[in-house]
């Protein structure tokens, strides 16, 4: 049941301040972060010494962008392998840590382990609360969080963010999809929080069970995070129409343990960056030079307060485009990421000269509501690199239409990607399902 989202500011003093004052605020906080890391964090003190810099060398944001080296995922992995189990980024003794969590492990690498102090953890929850409030969540909302509540940070921060606002929160870890859907219908849930993949899964199961989420529920907001689905137009459309609710995209990383950017109630298509909490850059992934507004680049992020495990200039591999704040009519000073996370540089593959990301395939496949699930591989067949999109169609699709749909997907891919895939239709229930991050893309050529 879609109603207009309420408009308001969590912290108008900061969200409406002039841009030059925001940058001064960022610089003050950044200097504190660097001083703290120098004094308390062996990982960053060693890094700064190796690069011949001290906190006193960083006097402006430009100094920081020019002089301070980036930290990559491989650096964190190596540090934790060399100094198990938590590495040398720990800035405080372990007894000060409140919360342990890990990255999801879906990249195939060992998960990065992270600790937060109580203050870090509340900060992360507050970053979520800010974003949720600015999207339109209010104390009278009834929220379902559809997530397993394991060691992956997932939606833990969202849980505390919703509680901070004063919502009624229903955690549903370990519950099956049918039961979750019934709860939505029975308990007047107004906000659903999950990954985009799981939102689609709920729609499929509801359809199979003959349950009407679009007309039978009080859902007004779908809060998604964890993967780029909401930035893919066809996926977004499917979710919004299927639930008849507003879809909000929320992006963050486990390593920063906070909500970096999110949709506001104006739903302009971009995600406001929480620039009082995070210093973000968009750079060329090879040269690390800033690409400026309007161009694709890699997000580099520095959380502006982290006690337990500082993180400075973290190169995320996320592909983003930066827009100026005035693109959105809300009036916030915060710049935006246009469309959210558009993909990942480390997911990109080349197939017969075409640069391909999983999101590009999803954009095509989700234009066909008959597709229930899909899985893409890049394979070598008869000596040629071949894109193979396995699809599973909904149970109610008439058999005489199956071949037609496969052909249409093939034609659309050819038109939009410049590649003609093979599109074999799979038996019902044969492809993997996902509650958290979906991994629907595999380059099998690497397995030689």
């Amino acid at each position, binding site marked *: 049941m879609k109603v207009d989202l309420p408009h308001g500011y969590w912290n*108008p*003093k900061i969200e409406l301040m002039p841009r030059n004052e925001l940058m001064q605020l960022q610089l003050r906080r950044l200097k*504190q972060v660097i001083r703290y890391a120098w004094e308390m964090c062996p990982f960053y003190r060693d890094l700064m010494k190796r690069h011949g810099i001290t906190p006193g060398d960083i006097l402006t944001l430009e100094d920081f962008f020019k002089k301070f080296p980036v930290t990559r995922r491989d650096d964190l992995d190596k540090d934790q392998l060399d100094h198990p189990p938590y590495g040398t980024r720990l800035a*405080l003794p372990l007894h000060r840590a409140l919360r342990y969590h890990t990255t999801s492990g879906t990249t195939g690498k060992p998960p990065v382990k992270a600790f937060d102090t109580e*203050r870090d953890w509340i*900060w992360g929850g507050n970053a979520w609360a800010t974003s949720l409030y600015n999207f339109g969540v209010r104390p009278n909302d009834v929220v379902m969080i559809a997530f397993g509540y394991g060691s992956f940070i997932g939606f833990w921060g969202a849980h505390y963010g919703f509680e901070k606002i004063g919502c009624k929160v229903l955690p549903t870890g370990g519950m099956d999809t049918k039961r979750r859907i019934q709860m939505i219908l029975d308990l007047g849930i107004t906000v659903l929080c999950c990954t985009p993949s799981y939102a689609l899964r709920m729609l499929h199961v509801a359809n199979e069970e003959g349950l009407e989420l679009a007309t039978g529920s009080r859902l007004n907001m779908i809060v998604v995070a964890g993967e780029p689905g909401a930035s893919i137009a066809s996926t977004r459309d499917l979710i919004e129409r299927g639930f008849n609710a507003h879809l909000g995209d929320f992006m963050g990383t486990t390593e920063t343990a906070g909500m970096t950017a999110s949709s506001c109630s104006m739903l302009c298509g971009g995600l406001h960056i929480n620039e009082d909490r995070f210093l973000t850059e968009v750079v060329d992934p090879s040269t690390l030079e800033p690409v400026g507004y309007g161009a694709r680049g890699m997000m580099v992020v520095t959380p502006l307060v982290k006690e337990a495990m500082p993180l400075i200039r973290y190169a995320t591999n996320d592909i983003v485009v930066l827009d100026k704040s005035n693109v959105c009519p809300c009036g916030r000073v915060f710049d935006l990421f246009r469309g959210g996370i558009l993909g990942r540089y480390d997911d990109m593959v080349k197939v017969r000269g075409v640069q391909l990301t999983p999101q590009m395939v999803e954009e095509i496949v989700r234009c066909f509501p008959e597709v229930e699930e899909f899985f893409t591989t890049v394979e070598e067949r008869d000596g040629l690199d071949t894109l193979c999109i396995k699809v599973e169609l909904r149970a109610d699709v008439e058999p005489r239409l199956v071949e037609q749909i496969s052909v249409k997907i093939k034609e659309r891919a050819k038109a939009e990607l410049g590649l003609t895939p093979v599109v074999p239709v799979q038996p019902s229930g044969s492809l993997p399902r996902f509650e958290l991050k979906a991994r629907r893309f595999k380059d099998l050529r690497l397995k030689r």
Partner: protein
Amino acid sequence: MEEKRCLNRADEQELATAYKILQKLSEHDLPVVRFNCRKAKNELWQALFELDLLDESGPAAGLGLLTDG
């Protein structure tokens, strides 16, 4: 009604005072007081941080990053 953007000076002072009270009570012998006040203190710290009241010129100067998590 125009949305209020900032605290006035008196309210800022009250926030800082409340923090200092909670900070003191976070050291109390009684667990019920110590643990609840520690949590409340760290929650209140968020407001001070988000409102940018922790710098040297503000009423909460000296409570900045990590003096007492």
